[in-house]
């Protein structure tokens, strides 16, 4: 029995299937993707399509819970599904003295002081911002900065540094030492597209006691999105939490804000935020062709992914699951996200110069 709107539904379905958000690029044309271009190399695309078809065939008839060893958790608005995994990983401990020394050693953080003035001031014995507390002209700003450092309010401090320096300034990484390793929440989300569509996976990771614990909230259906958002929110908003992402300033965080607003959930999400993309670009821009996470993994961490799904193609993998109920296409999506989180944490550690006694 045909319903009057089925035809319209099919029309929109067909049109949405046709309208991709990426283009295919032939590598033979000497093509190098920019970090945020919307191209997927043709060979990656072909491989991913084969992978998806193989997975659909290989996992036919298998239930979601059989494939993913996770557990159901209850949250304020329903239940959701969490996958947990762990691997070895270390971050340097909290070192507020070192962080404070680095921050206060940078006189340029005081408004009105540039390179030249800083040199002149240092020549006259003003070595740190603390010294400037005696300077007639810069006293007020210096005292305010000292207070901020003393309070250990990294959120305000990062904003302060961000006003005076670039988002890639290593001083921001030094400031991260105000935090204990377990304060850092590494975040990476997978979505059905670029904005105004559901998030399908929120991956969080924390480093504790020599290992990195990854928690992945995988949506069994987009219907669980609100539950997942409310499940992760308390952890993100907890006192002391500092966020670490790769391009999260542009993508992940605004995306989560938009989805929270979609459900009418009020949230602040004003925690300190370290976006590794900026630091990585500054550090490896000259040695790597691109600073996509994948390229950094290969070039810096020496990791080679197998059976990976290109980030841009995650939506169609999830859609395949959504339409068939076959969990196969989700397997590489979960692994992709987990690998992203682990690599993100390792890059963060390398950029901070962890374990080598200081930058």
């Amino acid at each position, binding site marked *: 029995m045909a*319903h*009057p*709107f*089925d*035809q*319209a*539904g*099919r*029309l*929109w*379905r067909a*049109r*949405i*299937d046709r*309208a*991709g*958000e990426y283009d295919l690029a032939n590598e033979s044309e000497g093509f190098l993707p920019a970090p945020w271009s919307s191209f997927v190399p043709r060979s990656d695309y072909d491989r991913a399509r084969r992978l998806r078809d193989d997975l659909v065939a290989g996992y036919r008839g298998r239930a979601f819970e059989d494939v993913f060893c996770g557990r159901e958790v209850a949250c304020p*608005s*329903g239940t959701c599904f969490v996958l947990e995994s762990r691997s070895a990983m270390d971050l340097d401990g909290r070192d507020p003295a070192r962080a404070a020394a680095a921050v206060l050693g940078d006189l340029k953080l005081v408004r009105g002081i540039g390179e030249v003035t800083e040199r002149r001031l240092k020549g006259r014995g003003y070595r740190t911002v603390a010294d400037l507390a005696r300077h007639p002209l810069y006293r007020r700003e210096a005292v305010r900065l000292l207070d901020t450092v003393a309070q250990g309010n990294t959120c305000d401090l990062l904003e302060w540094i961000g006003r005076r320096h670039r988002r890639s300034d290593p001083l921001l990484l030094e400031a991260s030492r105000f935090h204990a390793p377990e304060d850092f929440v590494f975040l990476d989300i997978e979505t*059905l*597209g*670029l*904005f*105004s*569509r*559901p998030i399908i996976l929120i991956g969080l990771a924390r480093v504790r006691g020599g290992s990195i614990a990854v928690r992945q909230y995988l949506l069994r*259906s*987009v*219907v*669980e*999105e*609100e539950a997942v958002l409310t499940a992760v929110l308390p952890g993100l908003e907890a006192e002391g939490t500092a966020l670490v992402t790769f391009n999260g300033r542009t993508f992940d965080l605004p995306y989560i*804000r*938009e989805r929270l*607003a*979609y*459900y*009418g959930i009020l949230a602040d999400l004003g925690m300190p935020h370290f976006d590794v993309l900026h630091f990585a670009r500054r550090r490896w821009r000259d040695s790597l062709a691109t600073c996509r996470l994948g390229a950094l993994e290969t070039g810096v961490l020496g990791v080679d992914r197998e059976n990976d799904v290109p980030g841009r193609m995650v*939506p*169609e993998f*999830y*859609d395949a699951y*959504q*339409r068939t109920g076959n969990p196969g296409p989700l397997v590489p999506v979960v692994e992709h996200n987990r690998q992203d989180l682990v690599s993100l944490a390792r890059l963060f550690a390398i950029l901070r110069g962890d374990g080598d006694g200081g930058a």
Partner: protein
Amino acid sequence: MATAVRDFLGLLAADPGFREQVVHIEPVPPRRARYGDLSRPLPDGLRAYCDGKGVRLYTHQCAAIEHLRAGENVIITTPTASGKTLAFLLPVFERLAADPAATALFLYPTKALANDQVKVVRELERSSGIGVDAAIYDGDTPAGRRPAIRERSRVILSNPHELHRVLAWHVKWSRFFRNLRFVVVDEAHRYRGVAGSHMAMLLRRLARIAGHYGARPQFVLSSATLANPAEFAARLTGEEAIPVGEDGSPAGAKTFVLCNPSAGGGGRSVHSVTKDLLLTLVESGCRTLCFTVSRKLAELIAIRSGSVPGISTYRAGYLPKDRRAIEDALKDGSLRGVVTTNALELGIDIGSLDGVISGYPGTMISVRQQAGRSGRRSGESFAVLVAFENPLDQYFMRHLQAFFSRPCEHAVVDTGNPYILSGHLLCAAAELPVDPERDGRWFGADLPEMLAAFERVHLLRKASRGWIYAGQGRAADTVGLDAVSSDTFRVMHGARLLETMDRGQAYREGHPGAVLLHRGETYAVTGMDLDRQTIRVEETDTDTYTQPLSTTDVAVVRELRCRDIGGVQVSFGDVTVTEEVVGYTVRHYGRAVSYHRLDLPPLHLETKALWFILPDRAAEAVAAGGRDLAGGLHGAEHALIAVMPHHAVCDRRDIGGLSTPLHPATGAPTIFVYDGYEGGIGLAEKAFDLLPAITGTAHELVRDCGCAAGCPACIYSPKCGNQNQPLDRVAAVMILGDLAGRLSVMGAPL
């Protein structure tokens, strides 16, 4: 200036070149101003502005202000240059002055118009001292300026396309939406037919978002004169609106001249007569606006008028700064004549002029807008309509009374079109979860069915707070605002994209071997890739052109309504129209040189149609008279379609027809008239109700035509897929006469 007008009228009467073609001269008497009073005075700043400009408020402006003060929605339909803009700007500013957080959104059909109007708004802001940070927010707004506008501006000028994209970002706009008090839709009459259905749904989405933030804005529609302002406003906004249409502004005497190049011996083209009129006017010192029905004609007439300085063209597609230069030159008098498409029908302030209208623009709404563009507050002016040799223009030339007493058209807005409705539902679900209870008021009684249909194709899922969008593409990108069809072909000239066309147009005009016209150049189609939806063309220098040959079939899917009027069985329902482009002819100056076969897949259109069966008696009479039944039905169908735009606001291209002496669904001689849009757009449905009047007009058209065996003025269709064969004019008159007579039991024909 008045003497120049009189001189010109004298010249028209005396010059043998014009005299023969002047069919009628209609004087329109001057009108005095009627001023009104407000129940309480405007704030000082606004009063100072009015005093500074020497403005005294007319009755209709006062009416609009009082209704808006009272919290009502208003549709203002007074003529061009009657002060509609001020009628809504004053009350909007009054409210924004009283409530320092209040915001207003002004929607214009084009970016050019917003650019023009922002100057007016800013001037009011400056001289009234009421700070609103008026700003344009559209596709041209630099990304760096957008956040500040969203966060600060209280009056934002934009367009429907921009709004369509912005709604999904409502969280960034929360300050603006939370305080939204007015939504002004300028040039609202533009949103009829398909455009109207889209606008209606867009405004519902906007109201829904505003409601989410606790705001319930008032709607102000500024429109050309319409037959059904209250109904139109209610359809467009979903809320009751008070019509304000009693014009209190003054007007000088005006003379309306009808000019028919086909009259008498004929032989002169509309373009050449238009050009001569324009030149004569400009030379006799009148500042003149000349409206044409297409961009191509505008360019052509301007080129032919090139010998006289001070004449320019103006149309959509020009760069904004060029357009503004033309507007300014026209205002300061350095430009004396402008040839334009309906782009200048819009409320861009260009001062007062005389007008030449080249060809009936399709609706009385446009005639009034264009004629209204010419005109002065005091002193004489005139407008000339030059008729084309097509059925409607010629009908008016023969039925002057019908022309001058003509009411403006009904503006059709169908809010039930399943494609448009469901498309906007998808967009809405991507903006906020859709709650079937709460959101029924925006999406109608069919909402649960639509939700279920979308669930079946995995585009919507039911979550705890409502139905959420689950598609992997961005809804607002997929659901375009312009047309339902986004099944487009790209026309490539080498690596350059020349233009895009929808599939139907591609099959008809872009098939291999076709000659394609683009910006005055001719191109030959060398290849057509159906999978990649690409057409390849090469430049060619030819004076031949091609004409596609197609066959069309209509299959009845479901009859929805049926009635018997005076023995004629009239039906309305769902149909599938199948068109096959089977070949094309190559023509050289109208003569067919060769014929070629094509092998293209059929095109299907699921739409709504009205159809009726010719009574046996009428068919027998045609046969008894020795006439051709098929030719008569075909001619009657063409005539019905030719007059339909006049009864149900639409373009001739919006509707299609089919006639056959024996249709499988009815087993009898049948005429179909269908909507040219997937899903239907309410035109056939409207025609179902207006059929007696439409048939009456069509009958008069063919009966009173002076031709012998049919002509472009009566039963020849410019878009016939069968090259106007067969046609039998006498049989068509018999059939239409019989139908008109029988149907007239429903009400007198026009």
